[in-house]
């Protein structure tokens, strides 16, 4: 027995020792390797112009017509160039189009293309390429997820729906090889800026016709922007190098732009700390505020609003006073400071900061706040009045719905407590898987929900249509005649200043009644290494690395 034991102990001991030795030797090798690599990386960054950023995950597609998310849009924006682009301040500057003219009634745009604009395979970028690309976006069989961005073009929506079959009737024509004429349904103040948006980026007609899968691999990829793809390991990494055929290649300073794919906030932060990333936009929520206040992280507006959705079909929430009570009893400052902690800005209006009214920034025009935050006294009063109107002694139990998400999980609990403390209302919390949640909201199967909305293009009206009576996205069943009228006037108004004023008035009507209760505006929070500069970020448009460089 003893002999057996000692043999076994010896044996295992032997195993462990061998293992430790091999492990140690491995470790020292590894150590040296990392050291070397680190040194390389350090010298690299001073010598070479390389920036590594995080794409979060494999882009579902990089073909402009098929892109449906921000990440893919961000990546494709480095590879393609639209008719116009934005400069550092967000002003519209020439892209593929050298110059452009607008007809007096604002419905016809004529773009004159830069004859130096070339595809990465050397072909010239022609007006026909744009005609082909936009027709492709609108072609029903292509099923472009963001095709509605081209519905402003004459007959765009009808063609996409299939009721109009002839592509020649679309409002986009090649007058000659380098002249593109675009006819709109009606004057659209933001259309010019929209031509920089990723859905409207051009693709090479000949390449697309020869090989429909050209956009899935690095070696068949043809683009016309500042960068081209050098290598693409799916799910892992995309490496971009400057496009030798790009007309503006002189402003491109980077030698390499690397996109890794890591979709985990803590890991991304760890990578940034260990210099594996130069630029980071997806920071852990819990430390965003800390990093902002210490000056390490920067913020930028993001045109997105989180708000409370009331179901106006519900008897209780059909009552204006009850909605006001719930909305006023929240301390948004505290929620943002202590709960969401992601650099959000308390929202006391509908339209997020950074969004245009068509005549200047909307919030500058409408003022920052339309009501008082944390107005508990008024809230109590409104609740009592509302209960009297409804003939109730107390509110029935309210159910607050939200989808599975860390931030909403905390936020809902904090709001529940505020309503309990300030108004004595019991609110029950319920979380659901995201798509189940969306389906419930769309079916009107809820009382109260946390929701969010973001702008697709740079105009306040984009967020406001969904609250008009009978709108397909009006899942709250809001019906305010005064609001509808103002919105219709705005839609018909050609004078941009007056149109903006209608929008401002409409927002006041909506928020005064607390048809929805705004919670906070989201912001982009990002980290950027000190030796990096020239990255341009915009409220809506995709990020731009064209002029980025390492100091």
């Amino acid at each position: 027995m003893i002999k057996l034991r000692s043999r076994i102990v010896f044996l295992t001991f032997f195993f462990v020792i061998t293992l430790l030795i091999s492990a140690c030797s491995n470790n020292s090798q590894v150590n040296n390797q990392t050291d070397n690599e680190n040194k390389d990386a350090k010298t690299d960054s001073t010598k070479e112009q390389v920036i590594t950023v995080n794409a979060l995950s494999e882009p579902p597609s990089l073909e402009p017509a098929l892109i449906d998310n921000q990440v893919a849009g961000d990546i494709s924006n480095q590879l393609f160039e639209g008719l116009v682009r934005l400069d550092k301040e967000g002003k519209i500057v020439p892209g593929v189009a050298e110059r452009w003219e607008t007809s007096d009634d604002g419905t016809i745009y004529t773009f004159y293309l830069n004859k130096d604009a070339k595809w990465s395979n050397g072909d010239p970028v022609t007006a026909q390429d744009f005609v082909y690309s936009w027709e492709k976006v609108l072609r029903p069989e292509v099923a472009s997820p963001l095709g509605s961005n081209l519905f402003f073009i004459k007959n765009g929506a009808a063609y996409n729906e299939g009721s109009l079959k002839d592509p020649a009737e679309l409002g986009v024509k090649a007058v000659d090889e380098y002249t593109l004429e675009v006819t709109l349904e009606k004057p659209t103040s933001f259309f010019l800026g929209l031509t920089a948006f990723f859905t409207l980026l051009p693709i090479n007609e000949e390449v697309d016709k020869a090989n429909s899968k050209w956009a899935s691999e690095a070696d068949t990829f043809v683009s016309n922007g500042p960068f081209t793809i050098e290598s693409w390991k799916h799910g892992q990494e995309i490496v971009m190098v400057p496009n030798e055929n790009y007309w503006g290649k002189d402003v491109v300073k980077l030698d390499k732009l690397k996109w890794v794919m890591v979709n985990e906030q803590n890991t991304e932060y760890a990578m940034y700390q260990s210099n594996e990333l130069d630029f980071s936009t997806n920071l852990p929520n819990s430390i965003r505020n800390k990093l902002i206040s210490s000056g390490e992280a920067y913020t930028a507006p993001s045109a997105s609003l989180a708000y409370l959705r009331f179901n106006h079909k519900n008897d209780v929430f059909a009552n204006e006073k009850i909605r006001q009570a719930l909305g006023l009893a929240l301390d948004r400052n505290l929620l943002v400071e202590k709960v969401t902690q992601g650099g959000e800005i308390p929202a006391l209006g509908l339209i997020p900061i950074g969004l245009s009214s068509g005549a200047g920034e909307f919030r500058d025009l409408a003022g920052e706040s339309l009501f008082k935050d944390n107005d508990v006294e008024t809230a109590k009063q409104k609740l009592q009045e509302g209960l009297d109107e409804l003939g109730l002694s107390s509110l029935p139990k309210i159910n607050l719905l939200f989808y599975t998400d860390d931030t909403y999980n905390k936020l809902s609990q904090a709001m529940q407590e505020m309503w309990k403390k300030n108004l004595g209302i019991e609110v029950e919390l319920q979380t659901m898987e995201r798509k189940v949640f969306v389906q419930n909201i769309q079916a009107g199967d809820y009382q109260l929900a946390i929701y969010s909305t973001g702008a697709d293009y740079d105009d306040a009206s984009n967020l406001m249509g969904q609250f008009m009576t009978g709108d397909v996205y009006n899942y709250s069943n809001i019906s305010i005649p005064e609001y509808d009228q103002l919105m219709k006037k705005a839609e018909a108004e050609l004078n941009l200043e007056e149109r903006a004023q209608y929008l401002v008035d409409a927002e006041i009507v909506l928020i005064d009644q607390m048809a929805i209760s705004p919670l906070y505006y989201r912001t982009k929070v990002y980290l950027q290494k000190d030796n990096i500069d020239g990255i341009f970020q915009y409220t809506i448009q995709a990020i731009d690395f064209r002029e980025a460089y390492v100091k």
Partner: protein
Amino acid sequence: MQPVRDELFVFKKKNKEEDLLSKPSVSFWKDALGRLKHNKLAMTGLGIIICLITMSIIGPLLVPYSYSDQSLLNANLPPSTNNWFGTDDLGRDIFSRTWVGARISLFIGITAVILDLIIGVIWGAIAAYKGGRTDEIMMRIVDILYGLPHLLVTILLMVVLKPGLLTIIIAMAATGWIGMARLVRGEILRLKESEFVLASQVLGGSFFRVLFKHLIPNAMGPIIVSMTLSVPGAIFAEATLSFLGLGVPVPLASWGTMTSEGLVTLLTGETWRLFFPALFISLTMFSFNVLGDGLRDALDPKLKK
């Protein structure tokens, strides 16, 4: 070898034989209990479990804060004389939340053990002992349950049922016992070819008698290990299911959800939010394990010296 013919065994003594066989098992359990009582470590484990259960009942009453009372201005306070375990990110008292959470987590843990025992052991034992086609069908059902995408099942349950403890138990009952069933089957496949089982069969032991008197007791080692190890799995499964909206609605706490939410503190530094729930999960694990080991030793007559 001569075929064993039934008539060879038509003895009147048969009943007496059975009595003889069953007699030691009565004193066997008594013996086992006696041995268990003398195992200090196992008794410590039992003591800790009893303490934890007691605290889960009275713990929240010891402090003036309820598990859901928030104080956003006092968020993330380290342990102090006011808040013995500190406060969490919404300024709630962690001491109070820990013991309210203990109710859910201990309940879930113990339920997992019971499900393992009732469904898992019996399923695996019957499959293995019956063998042949029964085994084939029963184990393929197990494979099917295991092969289905769990998230799909979870989402379906979320849609069909109301969130709550019962829903979690249903979700766990769907697949939680499968590991145990496989384990028991493997053991019994081996054991059923042993001499003592053959002997018992030949002596006319009925199907269930052989199963429960001979086969399952001899597979007790792996059963106990698997049972004790299913506890933390169940506690964390509850956290995942609750987060997905299947379990206990927030602001109710459980050790599992407290641990998951505590992950961020590895970055932000308020590690007490992670430490206490993790400590009590480990302590529960420890108690179940030493108790399980003690039970195993006690049930294994051959270890008696």
